[in-house]
């Protein structure tokens, strides 16, 4: 693969697939399946070709517009590569789940593939301009997918989603323009280096006055909307609920990770010192995300809204880990905790993506089998007619609950291991989230799978073989990561060490 611009290829692949899907008519889904499968293969190859020392590898550089500080600069470390893997897996799952698109399938799958390209582009870009292009690019197909294929209240949901994220992007863009004006660079590694020596802040202050903190806040707002962090999250329940379930899989499984990724790739490296200064309010918001997200889920009746809020809760643990590790002058013990938290955060990103996507897939199955029902009170006793569905969805739900032996636990354990010594109050309050999520998940199981069955659930079909085959690898991966997290962490940890070494708080 040496010399082959594999990251560019990976990004171009879905775009080519999208073009073909547009004209493929009723074969569009097959085209999309093939494309996403091929992308997954490439993503796995990339994961296996990462440099062992955790640095950024597979670098591609080309002159683009040097006078504007714009350069074609791609590369991935384990963080980026893991997100590529996740995006590829989730898109494949989403395409797999979307077998009932009757309205303009060509356009639908083309948009899904463009979205995938947006994800790939943003997880490989190392230059702000390039990164921002893909960040915005992914937004457009998502908007149309909600707007054109969504539920009854899709219009307002799509608009709110778009404008909200756009507002975040404006904050982000303005902050970055200021950085560019001060440093004449948009290159992430270069800016990281400047920040780690404190030069970045000096340059900004020299050019624009003491505004570095405001730039940090601008960047944080941009990502806080995307993740989302309380109180920037209100677009999420509506968007997740109104989007067709396969699109919700993409939104929660992959797109929400762009926000966390941004925090790790941009906010912490460039503005670590500023984030450390406002760490306490940020931790308060992270804890609020964990606790309020879980509790808001408890008050919902719609399965999609429940899982939407549970996503807020689960990404809250990522925020908790990220903000907790922003402590200046860490000693050896604190460094170990930072490494634990960061490994946990990145693992949690992957695990949440996998599990949440699976859960929305199951919701899609419940919906199509009962003629569109998705209120928890509208189900009951499904374990009897559909034991396999109940069993597999049960595993996904318990993974979401954080049961040891399944993937969800490992990330949460590492996050709590890291956060507790660094911010014990935040960690202690956040365990409430673990409790409440458990209550919510068990209530879902109780209402959907046990007790007497309502009329429209009579004759509920169990999974057919195709669905079993499609779900088996996903559930298998949950078990595999739960039991042998070293499969990921062995590769991830050097990158974590490398990242932490370059961050200054």
């Amino acid at each position, binding site marked *: 693969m040496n010399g082959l611009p594999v990251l560019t290829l990976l990004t171009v692949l879905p775009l080519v697939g999208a073009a073909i899907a547009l004209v493929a008519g009723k074969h569009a889904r097959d085209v999309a399946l093939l494309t996403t499968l091929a992308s997954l293969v490439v993503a796995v190859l990339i994961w296996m070709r990462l440099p062992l020392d955790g640095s950024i590898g597979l670098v591609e550089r080309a002159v683009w517009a040097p006078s504007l500080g714009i350069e074609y600069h791609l590369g991935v470390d384990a963080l980026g590569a893991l997100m590529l893997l996740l995006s590829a897996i989730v898109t494949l799952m989403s395409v797999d789940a979307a077998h009932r698109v009757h309205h303009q399938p060509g356009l639908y799958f083309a948009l899904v593939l463009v979205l995938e390209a947006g994800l790939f582009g943003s997880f490989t870009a190392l230059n702000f301009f390039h990164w921002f292009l893909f960040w915005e690019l992914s937004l457009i197909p998502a908007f149309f997918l909600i707007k054109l294929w969504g539920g009854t209240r899709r219009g307002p949901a799509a608009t709110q989603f778009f404008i909200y994220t756009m507002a975040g992007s404006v904050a982000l863009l303005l902050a970055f323009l200021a950085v560019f004006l001060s440093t004449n660079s948009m290159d992430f590694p270069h800016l990281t280096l400047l920040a780690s020596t404190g030069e970045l802040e000096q340059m900004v202050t020299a050019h624009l006055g003491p505004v570095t903190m405001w730039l940090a806040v601008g960047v944080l707002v941009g990502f806080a909307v995307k993740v989302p962090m309380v109180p920037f999250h209100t677009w999420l329940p509506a968007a997740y609920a109104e989007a067709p379930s396969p699109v919700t899989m993409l939104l929660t499984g992959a797109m929400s990770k762009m926000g966390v990724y941004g925090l790790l790739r941009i906010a912490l490296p460039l503005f670590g010192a500023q984030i450390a200064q406002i760490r306490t309010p940020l931790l308060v918001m992270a804890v609020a995300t964990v606790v309020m997200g879980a509790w808001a889920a408890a008050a919902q009746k719609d399965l999609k809204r429940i899982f939407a809020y549970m996503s807020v809760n689960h990404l809250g643990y990522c925020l908790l880990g990220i903000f907790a590790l922003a402590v200046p002058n860490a000693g050896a013990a604190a460094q170990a905790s*930072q490494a634990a938290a960061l490994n946990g955060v990145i693992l949690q990103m992957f695990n949440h993506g996998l599990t949440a996507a699976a859960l929305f897939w199951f919701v899609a199955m419940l919906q199509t089998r009962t003629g569109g029902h998705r209120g928890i009170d509208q189900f009951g006793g499904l374990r009897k007619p559909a034991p396999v569905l109940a069993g597999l969805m049960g595993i996904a739900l318990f993974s979401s609950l954080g049961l040891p032996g399944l993937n969800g636990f490992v990330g949460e354990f590492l996050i709590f291991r890291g956060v507790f010594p660094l911010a014990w109050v935040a960690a202690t309050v956040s365990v409430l989230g673990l409790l409440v999520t458990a209550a919510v998940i068990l209530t879902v199981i109780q209402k959907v799978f046990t007790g007497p069955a309502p009329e429209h659930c009579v004759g509920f079909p169990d999974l057919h073989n195709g669905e079993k085959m499609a779900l088996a690898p996903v559930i298998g991966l949950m078990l595999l990561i739960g039991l042998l997290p070293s499969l990921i962490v062995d590769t991830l940890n050097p990158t974590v060490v490398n990242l932490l070494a370059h961050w200054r708080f």
Partner: protein
Amino acid sequence: MQESISFTPQLAASSIAHLLWLVPAAPIVAAGVTALLKQPKRKTSATMAIGSMSLSLMLSLVAFAHVVGAWAQGLAARETVNFSWIQFGATNVDLGWVLDPLSAIMLVMVTLVGLLIFIYSVGYMAHDENFTRFFCFLSLFAGGMLTVVIANSLLLFFMGWEIVGLTSYLLIGFWYQKPSAAAAAKKAFLVTRVGDVFFLLGIVWLFAQTGTLLFYNNGAGSMEHAALAALLGQPALLGLTAAGAIGLLIFAGAAGKSGQFPLHVWLPDAMEGPTPVSALIHAATMVAAGVYLVARVYPLMQAGALAGGTTTALTVVTWVGAFTAVFAALIAVAQNDIKRILAYSTVSQLGYMMAGLGMGGVAVGMFHLITHAFFKALLFMGAGSVIHGCHDEQDIRRMGGLKADMPLTFVTYAIGMLALCGFPLLFSGFWSKDGILEAAQHWSVAKTPFYMLVFGALLTAFYMTRQVAYVFFGHWRGGKTAHESPSSMTTPLWILAIFAMALGLIGTPAWPWFRAFLEGHATRFDMLGFAEPGLLALMGVSTVVVFLGLGLGWRVYGNRTPNPDEPDVLEAASPLVWGWLHDRLYIDEFYGLTVVAFYGWWGRVSDWLDRRVWGGLVSAVARVFGLWAQLNRFLDTNVVDGSFDKGCDELASGGGLLARVQNGRVQTYLRILALAVAALAVLLIWSSRA
């Protein structure tokens, strides 16, 4: 992968120690294969479950014999096998297992009781349509429980602990069509999870402080001297050391699993599960896992205690245990469901074990754990036999006279009952309970727990006599006549009955083999053990108490043929007290009005905040933007151009400032800025119209 799981035997671990992982692995594999089999495969699943359990039992016996052999030769009887699971930074997250007297004894108990209950279940569940699934869950449970037993790492312990919690949840809710079973399952999982989140905090704290999760690792483990000394030097909150605080957090987890007050509320409800489940999980093994946990981390609990003294953590363990022992025994007096009486009895006996650990040490608490496992499993399986024979009747008021119809069940049940009451000399419960009472008598902090536990013993004898009198004496008050159970059910009863009597022999004062083995010193038979001052007097007291309880019980309930619809004799005497006890002191109702109500209320508040406050802010902003967009629509693109120009002007002035610093490239900057703002403005307007 290969690098990360590199086995690094600590001592020259023996081959059985290396193979110890097979003990939990065998039932887990059986469960996995059963789950993947095309349903229903009744015979295969039962054969695999029983076969894997037999294999585990054999391996456990070999391991036990090995440890006993090492101990008899005076060798260090602890072997560990540790390996790294994952690594973060330069820190390893280690897992591993340990073979020492504590784990060896538990292994034999769990596999033996487990195997007997598996065999019993073949008969008990014979007509259940989900027979296959039942054995799948039971095997998974056994795997989790055995993982707990052999774990040498707090994290591995926690993993097994949670698997056990999961299977407990699945098996309580086994008859999931019954809403009460589904609700009980959920309650069990959630109440124990309250303890578990504290446990988790304890784990991460201990890990952060000591840098290891291993219990024993050649001096570098968290339960070994160096780590404990460091923990003692670390102050935490409220005057506690880190050791004390972590000990209390871990105990919260143990209290949840072992049904200690105030987290006991799930255990009686757990009786919704099939009776073999109650016997295995909610009497003999899982609920004892909390006690085992305290025993496992005992060095931490005890850290900092002066000779003969105690620590804050152990004092808390003692008080919680002693209180639970009496409190649950009181409630048991006023219950009418045969399994619920036993459930409260289990809660009470777990309290005895905790108190024994707190006051007397590992050997005292663990001995009661082991004897209780056998006689309580026997009682539950006897109760299952009764329920089976009475056609699923569980109300003891609607039974009676079964000693004639079910003689085998009666005799074995009577043995279990006498063991539980602590009937002198012949029964194991007498010796193990006496050990606890003796420790309580010598406790340096207070004498109250001693009196509480003696009173608890009186109550135990009383409520068990009441139950036996109702069930086996008098005349039959039910519907269809009862019948004796098949031999697949009664044979395990006999085996357990023998253990319920004989096990006492290894823990008498004359031959305290159990204690010597656990504590690693030599012992021999010596009748002078009884000559310890005060011991015979104590045995006398406890004998008198047992006879008093039995006598009172018999006097009130014996040879009466109460009408099932009339109030109980005691109820007639004091309806108020009876009502409180019968309604479990209204603790469930209290939680309903506080914790559960708060949960619902706060959920609604969170939802309201979302919809009204945060959502309201957003809609307000959206309205402003909407107005702005309409203005644009009705006027003309000039407005857009106007705002565009205005934006440019503002940026120009900002840029002008900059131009003084960086000459010559202002135009370039402005071009990007203008383009970006234009793009954003267009997008915003266009999307808000969409």
